[in-house]
């Protein structure tokens, strides 16, 4: 069996589900919005795929970066822009775990804050899709301070509703800052959402961790998020909120 799994690649004709290990035809998986037919595992999506899935076709306009000097301000771990969902305008911040683990450093912080300031200026609803291992620790204290800066920027938004959709995985300083402070907190099924990574917890406690202790379902049961939304319902659910606000 392992030989079959080894040749399975996302770009190929077949994909192995990391959750149930079933082999799925890539085309069928794509048709099912990258959700496993067998076990409902929601595959991680890059920012481009996510935007394609959520927005009306061709409606996404990336926010022009302002005052950026040099490479350090360029950050692909988040895409920010304006888009329409079922004809309703909104602002989007979509994180991409495949770029540096979606980590939040100075450059990402700046993009998030500019997006938030745009929300406050325009009054457009703001939707975040989070996927991140936390702050970019390679930037030392400046990574950590992005938590404070994004929280501060979030608290300045009085005119626009803010929605967070937690996707797999969202941990560390992103969960523990602006993402947790949205007006509405949604999550995809099975997404890992938490503060400390499992390895850190194990180092401190020296014990086995309960399965699923950071799953979206556990957070919902513990009253930490508002709703879990299957991927096929996301557009409609977001549309509801855009209409309501």
């Amino acid at each position, binding site marked *: 069996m392992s030989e079959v799994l080894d040749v399975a690649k996302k770009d190929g004709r077949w994909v192995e589900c990391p959750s149930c290990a079933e082999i799925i035809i890539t085309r069928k998986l794509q048709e099912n919005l990258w959700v496993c037919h067998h076990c409902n595992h929601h595959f991680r999506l890059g920012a481009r795929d996510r935007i394609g899935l959520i927005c009306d076709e061709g409606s996404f306009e990336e926010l022009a970066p302002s005052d950026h000097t040099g490479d350090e301000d360029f950050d692909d771990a988040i895409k920010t822009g304006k888009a329409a969902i079922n004809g309703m305008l909104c602002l989007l911040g979509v994180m991409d775990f495949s770029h540096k683990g979606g980590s939040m450093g100075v450059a990402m912080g700046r993009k998030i804050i500019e997006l938030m300031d745009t929300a406050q200026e325009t009054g457009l609803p703001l939707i975040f899709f989070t996927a991140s291992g936390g702050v970019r620790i390679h930037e*030392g204290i400046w990574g950590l301070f992005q*938590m404070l800066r994004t929280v501060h920027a979030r608290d300045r938004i009085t005119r626009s509703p803010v929605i967070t959709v937690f996707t797999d995985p969202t941990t560390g300083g992103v969960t523990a800052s602006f993402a947790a402070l949205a007006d509405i907190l949604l999550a995809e099924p099975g997404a890992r959402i938490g503060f400390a990574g499992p390895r850190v917890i194990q180092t401190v406690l020296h014990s086995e961790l309960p399965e699923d202790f950071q799953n979206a379902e556990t957070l919902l049961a*513990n009253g930490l998020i508002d709703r879990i939304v299957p991927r096929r319902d996301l557009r409609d659910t977001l549309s509801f909120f855009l209409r309501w606000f």
Partner: protein
Amino acid sequence: MRSKDRFHEIDSALKELQESITRIEGMDTDELARKVSMFREEIYAGISRWSSIELARHSGRPVLDDYLSGIFRDFTELRGDRIGEDDAAIKGGLAFLDDVPVVVVGHKKRSSRGKDHARYRYGMASPSGHHKAMRLMKLAEKFGRPLITFVDTPGAYPAPETEYRGQAFSIAQCISTLASLKTPVIVCIIGEAGSGGALALGFGDRIIMLENAFYSAISPEAFSSILYGDDSNKEQAADALKGSGRDLASEGIVDHLIKEPVGGAQNDPAAVVEATGQVLRRCVSELLKMDREEIMRQRAAVIERLLPSKG
């Protein structure tokens, strides 16, 4: 050799030397004493960032209770999160700083001379602790009293039960509460200041920091594990994190750097507490003279400019 043992050995060797000096008769003891102190300076002057971290964690370093009893009058503890718990890792209450009523809240790593770290989870707060801290912050705001925080934690407590109770959410709320609190906030960073747990109490209108305290997004051991697979490069990791009081003062993040006695704060806790108290008094009287709106404006401006200098 364990780091604590190393410092202990150096300190006791110096002490022995000092004692033998006093026993020697007919010699120029002043000259010898001067040599001892030079020896001490030399050992500790070129102190590495990793050594700073070891000092920040030293078992003899002054902790929250030392500052509470050494600086404030009539500290009266207030407990509980009002949801169903009281977290011993966060201690706070009301006190007078000279004649000024203030609210104080901080991480309690252990009691003054106690080896009771475990009881306080080494100052690692649970969500309950953050909720207690927020309650006290809002109390300060409501009655227009200055809020003074003491930061001394390796980080927020990482465990399944703290995840169940929303550790990340409690930290985010605490940061938000602190950043928008409509009363003067003074932060004293006295030991370890690790990650989001530190940030939950770790930003205000004035930041006072001890020179060997260490503020960082992650411990050097964990950073080394991420970079190299294990903690054997913790010294380099500490250098990369640049989180000592001296580093943060040179970045302009810290307003007042408290110099520690040669060898670290554990060599003269009373002097460190006294020096911190003096700076604290100055900060409080400065901030009390300012208009509240002006304080809020300045704080917002500082947060917005909290970026590394280019170059």
